[in-house]
């Protein structure tokens, strides 16, 4: 009986949190039009959320592209189709790896930082302090960070894919001797702008919304102690990573199924 009670309580608190998260998102969205007057706040946040994530995105993209080049070559060469390596690398990156891996890295780098920052502002009474100065922290603190995250994600995913293609090129053409002309021309004729590239961009926008939403909500909803903030940071990384992977399956099924 006790197990059922616990299960019930767990379900109830989970749904309550989900409800709070949705209301929270509505209030944040309502605060976005006001940001038109204060573009500087958004630009600052794009720097700390997006630009500071660049290094990890570029390095990871390079390695993922190189591995794709290596594995792809080993498989394709058995069928004598190593000319298609460029197509394979670009297709995997643009459709799946770019948006998904970039979103996972973004959750780890920028999402956790957002949660920790907002959670600490709550724990040190900075958010209450703003409220008492008649400044709404949802508009002043959360909304610019949310917008910055949503704007940065597709750009980071695009950079990830571009660098990944370069990595595949270095390995395939530079190391393994695939013909450079074939590498690029197969890619050019095989990758469709609307079907492949744009669907990847739509995916990364969706991931940007989900990851940033989870990150700012967990920070704002954190228990205002050091333990509470660290728990919230962990939850951000876990929840947003799982959400990205699950959502990716749904989106892939809808787009390419």
């Amino acid at each position: 009986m006790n197990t059922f009670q616990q299960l019930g309580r767990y379900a109830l608190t989970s749904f309550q949190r989900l409800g709070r998260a949705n209301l929270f998102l509505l209030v944040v969205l309502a605060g976005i039009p006001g940001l038109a007057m204060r573009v500087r706040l958004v630009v600052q946040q794009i720097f700390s959320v997006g630009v500071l994530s660049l290094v990890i995105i570029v390095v990871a993209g390079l390695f993922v592209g190189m591995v794709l080049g290596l594995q792809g070559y080993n498989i394709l060469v058995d069928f004598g189709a190593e000319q298609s390596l460029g197509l394979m690398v670009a297709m995997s990156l643009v459709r799946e790896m770019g948006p998904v891996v970039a979103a996972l890295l973004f959750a780890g780098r920028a999402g956790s930082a957002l949660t920790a920052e907002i959670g600490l502002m709550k724990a040190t009474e900075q958010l209450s302090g703003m409220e008492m100065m008649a400044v709404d922290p949802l508009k002043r603190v959360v909304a610019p960070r949310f917008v910055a995250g949503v704007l940065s994600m597709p750009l980071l995913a695009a950079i990830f894919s571009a660098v990944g293609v370069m990595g595949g090129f270095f390995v395939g053409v530079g190391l393994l001797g695939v013909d450079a002309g074939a590498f690029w021309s197969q890619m050019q004729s095989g990758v469709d702008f609307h079907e492949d590239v744009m669907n990847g961009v739509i995916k990364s926008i969706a991931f940007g919304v989900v990851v940033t939403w989870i990150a700012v909500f967990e920070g704002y909803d954190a228990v205002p102690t050091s333990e509470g903030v660290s728990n919230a940071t962990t939850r951000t990384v876990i929840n947003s990573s799982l959400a990205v992977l699950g959502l990716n399956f749904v989106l892939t099924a809808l787009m390419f199924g």
Partner: protein
Amino acid sequence: MTGTNNNLVEARGLTFQFGSRTIFDGIDLDLQRGKVTAIMGPSGTGKTTLLRLIGGQIRPTAGTIHVDGQNVPGLSRRDLFELRKRMGMLFQSGALLTDLSVFDNIAFPLREHSGLPETMVRDLVLMKLEAVGLRGAQRLMPGELSGGMARRVALARAIALDPMMIMYDEPFTGQDPISMGVLVKLIRDLNKVLGLTSIIVSHDVAEASAIADYIYVLSQGKVVGQGAPDELHNSDSEWVRQFMQGTPDGPVPFHYPAGDYAEELLSPGAGR
């Protein structure tokens, strides 16, 4: 109502419950304009909660709180924010924005609300900083300030919009004697010079008695004593005297409720 009434803050039948715990049980408070009122009581009596209720950050379970004639729990969000522009609050931690310098922290409410040109904001910030004696620290970041300096910066920020009242949350806790003296002087001077109404929440009896015109003593959700400082020191209530004089044992027992001492010592390992 405004103007004719001599009380800036009036609470009637104020009740606040947190979960199943009753923090306030129908208390009445009158805080006079232009006076320094201290709210005192042991730790955990919800003194900070009272300030949050007055500031409208939380809503009472029952009762009314009128600030300058407006019932705070009944205000719309917009009206509440308008009212808050005329209230300053000094948090225990200072609550300075850690990513802004001292100067920008004090300029923050001015830039958000006043719409003044930057040159005038600068002059105002320098005046507020001079008032708390920290004009020389304007370029420092909050992390570089000592606890007492952070509280003075927060005080300068609280008076940036020239409010009608300031709420101080435990302003003396954790201060060395010198910064304590500085704060006591600042609170008293600001109250006089700016014609403010001040509310101080504290359990530092000596300091609060030194600056308060009127004191409320709260315990277990009730007002257990009120009056001018010397009246309270000679209160009829044994409880209030114990609190004001800080004696370790009295109506508030030294021991947390427990079973029989000898019995517990003699029962082998029962506690494990």
